């Protein structure tokens, strides 16, 4: 059980918990938190891979991921605010107009 294995296990776990949160939570904001957790787990793997290969590729990719995650979270939360103002609820079960 080296460091590498530990980190990978943690990453896998965090990713899965993130996925579970996204699937199972009622509130949209908390579901988004699940997305952030997933991204975090992936970042962990990427960084470790970069370390294994002794170059800065992993770091660069992680940089991009963080960048995109930031932009996406910001915009998504703004949209949630507007949705809350319009419909009064952020419960994902109520947003069913794609049904059918």
């Amino acid at each position, binding site marked *: 059980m080296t460091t590498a294995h530990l980190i990978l296990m943690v990453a896998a776990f965090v990713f899965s918990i993130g*996925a579970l949160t*996204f*699937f*199972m939570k009622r509130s949209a904001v908390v*579901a988004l938190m699940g997305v952030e957790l997933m991204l975090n787990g992936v970042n962990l793997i990427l960084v470790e891979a970069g370390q294994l290969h002794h170059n800065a590729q992993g770091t660069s990719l992680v940089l991009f991921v963080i960048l995109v995650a930031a932009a996406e979270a910001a915009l998504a939360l703004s949209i949630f605010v507007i949705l809350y103002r319009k419909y009064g609820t952020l419960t*994902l*079960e109520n*947003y*069913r*107009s*794609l*049904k*059918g």
Partner: protein
Amino acid sequence: MNEVANIVAAPLSWIVLLPLAGAVLNGSLRLKSPFNGILATLLCFAAFILSCLQFAKFPEATKLVDPGYLWFQAGHVKAQMGFELTPFMSVMLLVITGVGSLIHLYATSYMSHDKSPWRFFAYLNLFVAAMLMLALSSDLIGVFLGWEGVGVCSYLLVGYWYEDEKNTRAGMKAFITNRVGDLGFLVALFVAFAFFGTSSVSGILEWVADPVRAAALPAWVLTVFAFGIFWASCGKSAQIPLYVWLPDAMAGPTPVSALIHAATMVTSGVLVFVRLWPIFGAQEQLLTLVFWVALATAWMAALIALTQRDLKKVLAYSTVSQLGFMFAALGAGAPVAAFFHVVTHACFKALLFLTAGSIIHGMHDEKDIFKMGGLRSKMPLSHLAYLVGCIAIAGFPFTAGFFSKDLILTKVFESRGLVAYLLLLGAALLTSFYMFRSYTLVFWSKPRSKEAEHAHESDATILTPLMILSVLSLIVGWLEIPHVMGHVQKFSQWVEGSWTVALRGNEAAELNTSTEWLLMGIAAVGSILVAIYAFKKYSTGPDTSPETVAWKVSFNKFYVDELYCKFIIQPFRKVGCKISVWVDEWILDGFLHGLFGGYRVTGQVASIFHTGSVQSYAVLMLLGLLAIWEVARIW
């Protein structure tokens, strides 16, 4: 038959192409009359000139060929659009183009007050082109192309005045009945490809003449081949049971009846028979069948013609009867006699039809002979022409019809015996009777209607072909006169020189001189006596005696059309209706419903996944991603 064959190349395709060009030009240029008629006549006449040129090359050459081009080839099935000309076919070519040109000339005047005669002349030229194709083609497939082509043109021309539904129905009847016959031709073609490996006429004849190969063939092959051709001839050349279209085809304009239903198309069956005679000559049973069917046809048509009132119908049934004569000659193993009769019949039947057209024209389109009468003073030249035609067809001594009919009767007596001869003689005497009945009723006694009183003679363009054909009807017969009278044997030379393979079959016994004179005498005297009897009987007008059963049967054409309708056409229609309804409901609708049902079910299944919830979509995405990953990994 063992001479060295001298095969010469010749530009035969032009003979077919000229009338075809005429058809195309007439159809596209649509000139006013009379220019469309003149164009058509000129092109037909040019083909006649070319035919004369080719005819002059015989007898030095034994066969003229034009290799043409390869139409298609699939495996060993090869269709070569080539042309070949044998001596007897070159004579036929002269008949087709010569009589055709005369009829074109006649039609120029006859159709002059029609609405759009360019259509007529286009079709007429197309017909001539197709007929020439039939005659000239070196391959049975080309012959079939011409065969079908004349059928189509027959339909187009019979239904020319299509505004009247009666005419289109007559055209349809002609076409469909011919199609039933064409099945036989197709069967023969299939047999040729399957067993002889080729469909070219010379190829087939060579194949059959080779004793080794012929012995290896199953016995039924040649019989099936021959019977297929015979069945096709029953359709095209109006034998029982497929003759029913010919009388109805009189709905077309008279030049059409003259060209198609007298001189050329209906003789195609005889032409194919004579061309392939080495095969037919050996088929004893088939020839017997042919003979008796032909005899029955000749009798039946003659009996019907006895009571008809429509002038053209009388001539139509007369044509059927004469075709019966030709096939009787074939059935008696005498292709020379049959072909001779083809040529003479072309001359005098075309003459009769054209004269009938002139009469009908003069009578302002009245066709009922009971309404005519006393026309001989009003239409003297037409009267003369019709008289010449009648004596030719009746077989008065020294006319063309005399020699050809006499030859047929002699051959029948030689090969089929006395009874058959007497029966055929009876049909010949009936011919004389009904032709003179029609002649008397039209031209003698008093005019029986207003149109008859005001009838007028036709113009020169119509009368000229009549005169030419009258002369021909008198002199063509002298090309083949019997042994006892000088033994001119032009036709025998031509026909027998056309098969470059040895003829198989038994030669009939030669008659002695006195029997020949006796037979000729009986036929000649008999026809004259019958003619006089008919003249006496009808010279005061139509027969007004009460209708007997026999008369009813004859007048109603032996009820054959009604029988066909009831027993063949109606059941066919019923079954067809049922099948079509079934196919429509179950197969077509079922297919569509199945297709749409499939789409609907697919949509319903897919919409199960459309829950509207983002989170379940995310689950599905994850599953999909895993699936793709697995697949990519394995692959």
